[in-house]
């Protein structure tokens, strides 16, 4: 019954989680929130993580009711993500692994999301829509790899939403995407935006440029409200994501879809995906904000799978990498 400690901090959320045999024993998290109209920079984010991570670590152990000796493995986010925050978390992981004389495991952040989604929802072999501020991929498991069937060719969908939120000076608390979602519920007018699906891939940078320009013009003339723009942006980008997910499901003959990543918390996205799944006779799986948003337990869960499969990361090989593809990892813990 191994218990794995997981440390996550690839973006503006830093979390420490403990997982043992499929049970999440602890999962505290802190978010670095910046003022409206601004984003989070690597140095400032890393400073935030360094200030809180040791308290989070203690909090996780206390919440789990475990001592350091009862931890069997220390997992951390190896990548992808922002460099300075990743380094800050990795340094703590290396240190506690040495202090407690436990094996260390570097985990792919994307696979952390997938494994936590599978654990929480019970989905067996779904087509995964992974959508967050840093990543947008459609993924399916095949022959020991999480294969990327489609992805963004430029910015992530969450990045598109977050940067649009800055234009409107929408609050970043608790997250810009959440506040866009609330405003979108009050939108009444659909503003036509570019719809950019390229085969299995999507593109959001042009939509962002278009809506940033349109926002200035249309809001100044009263042609639409900020709520209308939030609604229109969501409808457009989410429809694109539904299309490429459905295409992947048709290609794979999949009857399950799983949404993971911070944008996966969005209820409108879940609603649109549910409609598509029902039309195909498929089943949709999604988690709540505890596990959709970056968290330590997802790293612990992926680490738990990897640990049981015999994976280890030597200290000499325990660096971080800002670019770490989902399909780089050999998934030896699945058939």
């Amino acid at each position, binding site marked *: 019954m191994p218990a794995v400690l997981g440390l996550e901090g690839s973006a503006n959320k830093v979390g420490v989680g403990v997982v043992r045999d499929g049970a999440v024993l602890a999962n505290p998290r802190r978010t670095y929130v910046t003022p409206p109209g601004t984003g989070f920079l690597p140095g400032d984010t890393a400073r935030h993580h360094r200030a809180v991570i040791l308290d989070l670590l203690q909090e996780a152990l206390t919440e789990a009711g475990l001592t*350091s000796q009862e931890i069997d493995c220390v997992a951390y986010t190896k990548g992808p993500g922002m460099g300075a925050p990743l*380094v*800050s978390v990795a340094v703590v992981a290396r*240190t*506690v692994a040495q*202090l*407690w*004389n436990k094996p260390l495991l570097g985990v792919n952040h994307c696979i952390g999301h997938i494994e936590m989604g599978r654990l929480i929802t019970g989905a067996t072999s779904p087509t995964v829509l992974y959508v967050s501020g840093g990543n947008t991929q459609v993924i399916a498991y095949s022959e020991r790899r999480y294969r990327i069937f489609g992805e963004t060719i430029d910015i992530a969908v969450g990045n598109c939403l977050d940067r649009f939120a800055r234009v409107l000076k929408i609050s970043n608390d608790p997250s810009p995407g959440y506040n866009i979602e609330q405003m979108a519920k009050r939108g009444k007018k659909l503003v036509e935006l570019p719809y950019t699906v390229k085969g299995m891939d999507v593109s959001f940078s042009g939509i962002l440029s278009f809506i940033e320009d349109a926002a200035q013009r249309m809001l100044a003339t009263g042609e639409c409200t900020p709520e209308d723009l939030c609604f229109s942006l969501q409808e457009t980008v989410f429809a694109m994501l539904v299309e490429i997910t459905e295409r992947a499901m048709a290609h794979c003959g999949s009857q399950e879809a799983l949404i993971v990543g911070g944008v996966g918390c969005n209820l409108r996205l879940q609603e649109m995906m549910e409609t598509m799944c029902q039309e195909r006779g498929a089943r949709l799986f999604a988690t709540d904000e505890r596990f959709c948003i970056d968290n330590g337990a997802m790293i612990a869960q992926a680490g738990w799978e990897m640990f049981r499969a015999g994976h280890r990361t030597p200290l*000499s090989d325990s*660096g971080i990498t800002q670019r770490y593809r989902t399909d780089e990892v050999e998934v030896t813990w699945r058939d």
Partner: protein
Amino acid sequence: MQAPGDGEGGAAGGAEGGAGSREGEGGPRPEGAEGEAVRAPPQAEVAPQPAGSGRCLNRAPSKLTVPFRTPLEAEMARRSLAPYVQRPRGLVQKELTVNGSALAIRWTAEDPVFFRISVNAFLDQLSLVMRNIRGFGSPPMRSLGRGKRTDT
């Protein structure tokens, strides 16, 4: 280069104080945290600047020595920070060495701006490692092997 330290405590206190004031950290110290076993502040050496040069170029190495309580802690800090050090840094080179209970860091940089950035970033991570070691117990007793350990 002045090493962060006010002489009131060991290197852990010195480096931590510098980083702590920069980060605004002020969290509660863990119960039972041991006092400083090392009293000497970090030692720093800086290469002399060429006279009359309009631009400050530091091609000679600068060195910081950080004493720890035990050789094991020093080696632990080196291993925690070594993967960070090993990333290619272009104009700045860093070398970590353990001598007894002290961790020695040597910088070689051509540009003072990159040098300053590198030192500041490294001290932030070093401070985190030291707080981590202090807060989560003494390392398990095990042999380090013989000789100096060096990472570049």
